[in-house]
Every structure is written in structure tokens, then in C-alpha cells.
């Protein structure tokens, strides 16, 4: 006897459902991209904590910007790199609201370095989520501040040369040094276990905000299959073999 789709989607057979915070829009993210999972996790956490009414989210420039098409919370779209400045003002003017910024590596660790460092150093009571895939996805695969040594990108086609291009930036370790941050962690979403850990981290980020502990900062080491020119499966493997040794997973600070 064959089981067809109608049987599978019967209510009594459902073991998992889409978060009500997510829209029905088809995601533009490429197959194998980590953004979709990260977006789903944020939506699930907002739903589970029952804080949809209280969230103001800030989208940056890059692939992350279109997140506002997928999560049904009030959104502000910032100029490139400036999300932490927006978040600062929003939280100070609306301390009764949860503020979450969502930025990629070019946005957070290159053009927005000053805004990132100073928001964290002031200890703005917000949650910052940082998608690090070591490449500029939206603009077509250019070198990012977090591109690894030897890693190829369209603006370092022979691989990142430290002498010519400078070093990849471990901004998360840097941010952990700042007294304003209460929770700094590096996670990923490439396995079921990793997804669960990242979800816990996001929950903690929102809870820290409620407890007024300061800045929570979650880096999600991510894949960019299109930018890396690998299949989704190859991307996960490449991330484990190359990204994780340089960007090790785990909590860096938790107070």
C-alpha cells in the first residue's frame, strides 16, 4: 500500500508545523543557504515566547534584508551596516519592546564595524544576530571581512592573500571583550543538533533582553552555496572542515 501526500498531511499525522509568525511568501534564499533556517528559528522563538506584538526587528543590506518578507513582525530596513544604530534608538525610545537586529558579515563586520562595536560597548539591551558565511551573497560572491585565508571570492579570485587583502576578522571574539555584552556565542544551523542549540541561544537572547542584561550577540556560521560555488551538501562539509576550525562553535561569554 502506498502512502500519498493526502495521508501525510492529515492533521493527526502532523508532527511539525510552520510557525504562525512566518508568512506564506516563498523564500528567495538559494538551496542550501542557512538564512532560511535562521529565519525559521527566530519566527519559532517569537511565537513560543508569545512576543510577536512586542518585537521590532531591523533588517540590514544584503541577502538578510528580505527577511522582512518572511517574518510577521514590525520591521525597519537600515542602511548598510547601520542596524545597531537604529536598534539603539528603538530600544531607548521603546524599552518596552524587544529589539532584534539581523546582519550579514559585510554589513556587521565591514561597513558597520563602528556601529556594531559601539552599540555592544554601550551595552544596548538588544539581540544582535550575525550571519557569517564569509562572502557577500547578494552582490554576487565578493570577499567579505570574514573570508578565510585562501578562500576564493570574485574580488580575490586566486584566494584571499593575507599580505594583499588583510586578515579575516574574528569580530565575535572582539565583541566578547566589551563589557556591554552579556552573552556572546557562535552557533550554526547545518545539523538538527546545531539547529536546536541555535534556537536555545536565540531564546536566551530574548530572555536576556527581558532581564535587561545588555547586548546579546549570536553569530551563526553559515553556508552560501551559490557564493561558494558548492552544492548544499558540499557546503556543509566545507563549512565543517574550513570555517569551524577558524570560527569555533560555542559560547564565548555568558553572564
Amino acid at each position, binding site marked *: 500500500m502506498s502512502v500519498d501526500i493526502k495521508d501525510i498531511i492529515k492533521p493527526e499525522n502532523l508532527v511539525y508545523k510552520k510557525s504562525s509568525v512566518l508568512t506564506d511568501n516563498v523564500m528567495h534564499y538559494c538551496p542550501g543557504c542557512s538564512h532560511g533556517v535562521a529565519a525559521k528559528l527566530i519566527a519559532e522563538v517569537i511565537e513560543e515566547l508569545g512576543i*510577536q*506584538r*512586542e*518585537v*521590532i526587528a*531591523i*533588517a540590514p543590506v544584503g541577502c538578510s*534584508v528580505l527577511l*522582512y518578507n518572511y*517574518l*510577521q*513582525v*514590525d*520591521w*525597519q*530596513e*537600515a*542602511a548598510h551596516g*547601520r542596524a545597531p*544604530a*537604529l*536598534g*539603539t*534608538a*528603538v530600544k*531607548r*525610545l*521603546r524599552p*518596552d*519592546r524587544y529589539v532584534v537586529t539581523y546582519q550579514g558579515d559585510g554589513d556587521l563586520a565591514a561597513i558597520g564595524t*563602528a*556601529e556594531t562595536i*559601539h552599540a555592544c560597548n554601550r551595552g544596548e539591551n538588544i539581540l544582535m544576530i550575525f550571519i557569517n558565511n564569509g562572502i557577500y551573497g547578494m552582490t554576487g560572491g565578493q570577499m567579505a571581512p570574514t573570508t578565510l585565508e585562501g578562500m576564493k571570492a570574485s574580488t580575490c579570485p586566486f584566494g584571499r592573500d593575507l599580505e594583499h587583502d588583510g586578515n579575516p576578522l574574528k569580530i565575535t571574539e572582539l565583541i566578547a571583550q566589551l563589557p556591554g555584552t552579556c552573552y556572546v556565542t557562535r552557533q550554526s544551523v547545518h545539523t538538527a543538533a546545531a539547529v536546536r542549540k541555535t534556537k536555545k541561544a536565540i531564546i536566551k537572547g530574548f530572555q536576556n533582553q527581558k532581564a535587561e542584561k545588555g547586548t546579546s550577540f549570536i553569530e551563526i556560521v553559515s553556508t552560501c552555496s551559490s557564493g561558494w560555488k558548492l552544492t548544499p551538501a558540499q557546503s556543509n562539509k566545507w563549512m565543517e572542515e574550513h570555517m569551524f576550525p577558524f570560527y569555533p562553535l560555542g559560547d564565548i561569554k555568558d553572564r
Partner: protein
Amino acid sequence: MKEIRLMKGNEAIAEAAIRCGVDGYFGYPITPQSEVMETLMALQPWKTTGMVVLQAESETASINMLYGGAACGKKVMTSSSSPGISLMQEGMTYLAGAELPCVVANVVRGGPGLGTIQPAQSDYFQSVKGGGHGDYHLIVLAPASVQEMADFVELAFDLAFKYRNPALILSDGMIGQMMEKVEMKPYKPRWTNDEIEQMHPWATTGKPENRKYNIVTSLELDSARFEVFNEKLQRKYQQIRDNEVRYETFECDDAEYLLVAYGSSARICQKSIQLLREQGIKAGLLRPITLFPFPTKEINALASRVKGILSVEMSAGQLVEDVRLAVNGKVKVEHYGRCGGMIHSPEEVVEAVKQKIIGG
């Protein structure tokens, strides 16, 4: 009873901001306007009205803090001087593109570059023609006294919210630093969060169940839709041109020669007109109070009645271009002005009228 105080233009901005119910000020120090934030920090309005005051890490950050606050429907402002305002241009075009109301005060100093800390009016083009990228305008008010520095804060917010557009107060180091008596307005309460949600349904206040979620953005990847949006913006600017032109005339009724000047230069020109009239030369002044929208029709009408027009501005000649466009060749229009932080005397303006307009 009236409350009259002696204060600097910069201090007047700070006092007026607290009194008219501003929610947040975000700034970065720069001469000659640092007294704005210094006054606010000394007054600590967060303990009284609840107004937030924050020193940002840069002008880039402060203008983007305005974006965040304005998108929440809050009354937010910043102030700076020319080099800092240049750094804010990215934020200004995003604010205009996202149709966010806010107020920016520019206490202008001489440029280009790091320039000088002395007063100038050389940021006119940047203020009225754009400054950042894209087809947009700011609403631009030009105070000519410390009283107007105070009054224009509230006026700028009224216009900014009426049209959902950033408004700029374009003053200079002279008005920012000089002291005059000011009649202070009584305190107005800040809007409550509930009032904001009622008045500004577009604001990101947290999504209630009964409305779709709000997105404040200037991004539209579909060009056809973005053209429609741009056309809507242009209709808004036309409405502003139709409804919000403000100007003042001085001794224009029988004038044979017209001076056009704004801000500090307009104050100097009033004295020049008195000197000219003592010498039997009938001169008058039109002072644009709004620089965008510009009093084009009013200047054009006066051009039909005078023999020549001198545009007076502390710059190498920027305002003069809009005066010429308004006059459209009817009479001769010349520019006079010191620049680089130098201030023309009333006598120098009198000489310029004689040399460039009457004798020229």
C-alpha cells in the same frame, strides 16, 4: 506671564526641543554647535519629560539613530555642522526614501573640507538640491534670529510629520553662537505610545493582531513600482511647494532695487537697506524663510517692479542660482558675498549694490 531668556542660538534649539515634546536627540560634537548637546546633557530632560539624549559614536550613527526613532513614530532630532552634515547625507536620503519625519539642524561653518569653524552659508546646494543620492528634497527652514532658532524646532517637526519628510533647520555659526532674548514657549507633553499608534499607523510600534506588520524601508527591487513611488514623492514635494512657502519682505513697497538673502545675511542686509535709503537709494529685502520650498513666485513678482536684484549670501554664490531661476531673465541678478568663514559688513553690501546693480 511671558518667559523671556537671554541665550545662544544653539541653546535655544535645545530648550525648544525639550519644550515642544521631542522624544529623542542623538548627536556628535562639532564646532560651532556643540552647545546643543551640552545644554541638553546639562538639563537632563530624561528626568523630566522623558526625552532621550545620547551622544553617538559618529554623525553616521546619530542620523541612523534618527531613522530608528522616527520609524517608531517618535519625534527625534539631531544637530551638527557642515562636515558632520556631509557625513549624514547617506542617512538623509534613506530617511527621505522611507518617508520618515525628523529634524536636523545644521549650524553651518565654512567649507569645503574640514574648512573653518567660522560661519558660512555655503551648504545651500547640499540642503535644498539633495545632498544624498536620488530624487528627494528636505523641507528647509532658515532662521535669522535666536528666537527663530527656538520657534523653528517645533515648526520643523510640524512640517516633517505633516508630510512625513525630514526637515532641516539651516542656520550658521553666527546665529548658533550669538545671544539674543528669546520668548520661550510653554512645555508640551510628549506623545504617548498609544497616541503614536493612533496617529501614525505606518510606524513600527510592534504588530498588534488587528493589523498587517509594518515595514519601514526605502528598498523596492521592482523598477516599475519604484517609479510609481518616486512619482508619489514628487507629488508630495509639489504639495509642499504649493502650501508651505514662507518668506518676509522688508521695505519692498517702493523698492527700486531688491536684495534677496536668508539667515544671517538677511540681518546684515536690513542694515544695508537703511544705509542705502539714507543715500536716497530705494532698496528692499526679500528674506526666504523656507529655502525648500523656495519663494519663486514672490521673487518673480517683485522682479517685475525693480531695476535689479542682488543675491547676498556668505558663499561663493549658490542661492543666486535659484533667484535667477525665479527671475527668469526679467532683470539683472548678481551675487555678492564673502566666503570661507568671512562675514560681509552692511557697508560692503551697499557698495556691491552700487557697483554690481546700479552702476553695472
